[in-house]
């Protein structure tokens, strides 16, 4: 806890059920969140061992501002990614950060492997490793319900769990957080699966007196007003991130049909407006966020003759409507919601699953794989076959699905088709085909996410291609985001939390930092990540861009591979100057 002048770390070893707590003053400079999680991964990780080696730690942390300031809702997970074999980093909201706060831990380090399926129940200082054998094989929803039934702390509890995908070590598996949020993307679900860990519940009753009440209340109020009364975050509440679907489509930036196209003919049918009009029934917030960007869609599904209906609901967002919508050619919201519901229940990452199936569909079209491999004919727009394929993927039905479950990269190694596998250094792309900055940003970003450095955003504001500007922007943005992520802020609030605001907020807690010091913290976290990535064997110069990126038009027209290569080289060169040499312990 930043406010207590030390950080509390809980270490759990599943091999021998040993539990220890360390209070670390030396970690204060890392603030929390991405900062301490990166440092702990450096201390505890086994960079050269397999990502699913039981010794590998799964590290969870809340941010320095968690439960203290508005929209500080994001917790972080750091691990070695079984999907890319290098840096694993993922963020989730829900009640995770609040639960960590009341439990009294800034970070949790989980190592080892339980002797049978288990879940970890944390209630303040009381730590239990509980039997989860009856839950193994159950859906995310069912297992979550069982854990909630058993554990105390309603209202102040988070329930993390994996689905069958994580149990079966599918590298596209995520970790569900409180039903509507996730630690997604880089295969954390498989990491927990490899530890025989079905889930984690966290709660507690920790409380912390406010040191300077008037000063803090003023700071809180100012930030709260900025987040709610100004338009800084309004779009996230209104239509939500899905508001971007039509504009990005109009820009030729909306990946469609395995990125064979960058605009979708039936876009209106799956637009944010269409979802809102027909299906939006509820908005929810992560704890501590007055904005409420979680959009829940409800639909009625006929499951049998004789008017047999079930009422289903799923949370949707821009990325899901891209990956499980346009990318697979879904032309109505119910189809998209059905696919979302499937990935949710099985614990699959929505983006990676959609992009992997998009690749598989084209591989099937091109005859690289046949029905013998895919078992169902994969065709854009055919929702039933995709639902079936997802089940095969989770069950690892045959050799093809076994390999696809290792990620698109691995499947393409065997069957060919790297040219049309939309991957950013082995990670399935996010939903922005905006131009050079987006592709470069995801390729070079620590976790290959569009959220590492927002290249997609620069593409939208940049008129003429300026290589220096692109590279400088990506470097600066990535370091700044390391700071934002150390504080546990939702990136949607990045405009609310500019440097003076962060300074003012820290000062209200009695912590004085100059702007330069804050910038330095961001840079140091970034540098440490890069160092660990290198130890894990990652080499940016070995990047291979798939041809597909240079075939399909973007907002900036058809991109040139030579220009991208030059940008990459410039980035590598500038990165060396930009990040300080990490201070090793």
């Amino acid at each position, binding site marked *: 806890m930043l*406010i207590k002048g030390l950080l509390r770390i809980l270490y759990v070893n599943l091999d021998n059920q040993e539990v220890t707590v360390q209070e670390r003053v030396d970690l204060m400079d890392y603030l929390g969140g991405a900062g301490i999680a990166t440092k702990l991964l450096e201390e505890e990780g086994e960079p050269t061992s397999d990502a699913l080696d039981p010794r590998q730690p799964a590290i969870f942390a809340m941010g320095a501002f968690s*439960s*203290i300031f*508005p929209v500080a809702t994001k917790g972080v997970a750091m691990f070695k990614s079984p999907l890319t074999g290098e840096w694993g980093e993922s963020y989730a909201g*829900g009640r995770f950060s*609040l639960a960590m*706060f*009341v439990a009294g831990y800034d970070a949790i380090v989980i190592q080892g492997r339980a002797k049978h399926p288990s879940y970890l129940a944390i209630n303040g200082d009381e730590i239990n490793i509980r039997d989860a054998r009856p839950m193994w094989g159950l859906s995310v*929803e069912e297992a*979550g*319900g069982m854990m*909630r039934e058993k554990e105390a702390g*309603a*209202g*102040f509890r988070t*329930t993390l769990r994996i689905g069958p995908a994580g149990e079966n070590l599918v590298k596209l598996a995520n970790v569900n957080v*409180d*039903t*509507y949020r996730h630690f997604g993307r880089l295969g954390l679900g498989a990491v927990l699966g490899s530890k025989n860990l079905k889930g984690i519940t966290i709660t507690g*009753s*920790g*409380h*912390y*007196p*406010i040191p300077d*009440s008037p000063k*803090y*209340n003023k700071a*809180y109020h100012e930030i*709260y007003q900025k987040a*709610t009364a100004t338009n800084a975050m309004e779009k996230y509440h209104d239509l939500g991130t899905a508001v971007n679907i039509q504009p990005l489509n109009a820009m030729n930036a909306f990946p469609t049909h395995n990125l064979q196209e960058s605009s979708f003919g039936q876009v209106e049918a799956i637009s944010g407006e269409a979802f809102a009009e027909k299906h939006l029934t509820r*908005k*929810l*917030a*992560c*704890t*501590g*966020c*007055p*904005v*409420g960007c979680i959009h829940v869609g409800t639909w009625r599904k006929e499951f049998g003759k004789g008017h047999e209906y079930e009422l289903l*609901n799923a949370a949707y967002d821009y990325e899901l409507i891209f990956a499980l919508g346009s990318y697979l050619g879904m032309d109505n919201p119910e189809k998209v919601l059905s696919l979302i519901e499937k990935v949710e229940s099985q614990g699959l990452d929505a983006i990676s699953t959609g992009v992997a199936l998009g690749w598989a569909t084209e591989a099937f079209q091109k005859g690289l794989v046949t029905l013998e491999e895919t078992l169902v004919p994969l065709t854009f727009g055919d929702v039933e076959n995709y639902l079936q394929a997802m089940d095969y993927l989770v069950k690892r039905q045959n050799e093809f699905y076994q390999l696809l479950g290792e990620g698109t990269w691995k499947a393409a190694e065997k069957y060919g088709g790297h040219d049309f596998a939309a991957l950013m250094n082995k990670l399935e792309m996010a939903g922005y085909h905006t131009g050079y900055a987006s592709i470069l940003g995801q390729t070079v970003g620590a976790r290959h996410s569009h959220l590492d450095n927002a290249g997609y955003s620069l593409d939208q504001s940049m008129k003429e291609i300026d290589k220096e500007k692109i590279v400088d922007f990506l470097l600066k943005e990535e370091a700044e985001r390391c700071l934002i992520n150390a504080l546990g802020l939702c990136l949607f609030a990045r405009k609310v939390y500019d440097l003076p605001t962060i300074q003012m907020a820290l000062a209200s807690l009695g912590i004085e930092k100059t702007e330069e010091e804050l910038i330095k913290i961001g840079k140091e976290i970034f540098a440490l990540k890069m160092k660990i990535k290198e130890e894990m064997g990652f080499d940016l110069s070995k990047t291979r861009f798939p041809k597909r990126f240079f075939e399909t038009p973007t907002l900036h027209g058809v991109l040139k591979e030579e220009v991208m290569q030059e940008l990459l080289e410039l980035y590598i060169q500038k990165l060396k100057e930009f990040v300080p040499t990490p201070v090793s312990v």
Partner: protein
Amino acid sequence: MKKVKRLRVENMTRCLGCYSCMMACARHIHKNFSPQKSAVQIRTKGGLQSKFVANICRSCKNPACVEACSSGALLTRLGGGATFKKDNCTSCGLCVASCPVKAISWDTEKAKPIICLHCGLCTKYCPHQCLQIEEVEVYAN
């Protein structure tokens, strides 16, 4: 006649579950970062797929909590609910047990009940006006 404020639940189906109300009570009244220290408690009935409910003082005219308190720490509040006289409290916890709708939380650190002041600060931080303050006129006696 005297004007008295009363906290009431208005639109819980619109609740986002953001806990801004709880944080406001904790911050301003209890001077604490933990939203557990709040007279308002937002809950779900089993996970985020279910509805939110607000556990708040319902302003009983003759409250059970006042009846249960034998030390004179809880007095009937004008307009309903209870007024808390901290110095008289013996930390017996009977008020918490007595509330038929479990609206009184227990401050584990101070070993005192958390009694709603009906000040309405929480409503100012509710983005969807789920909780509201009503002003009612009551006879002073």
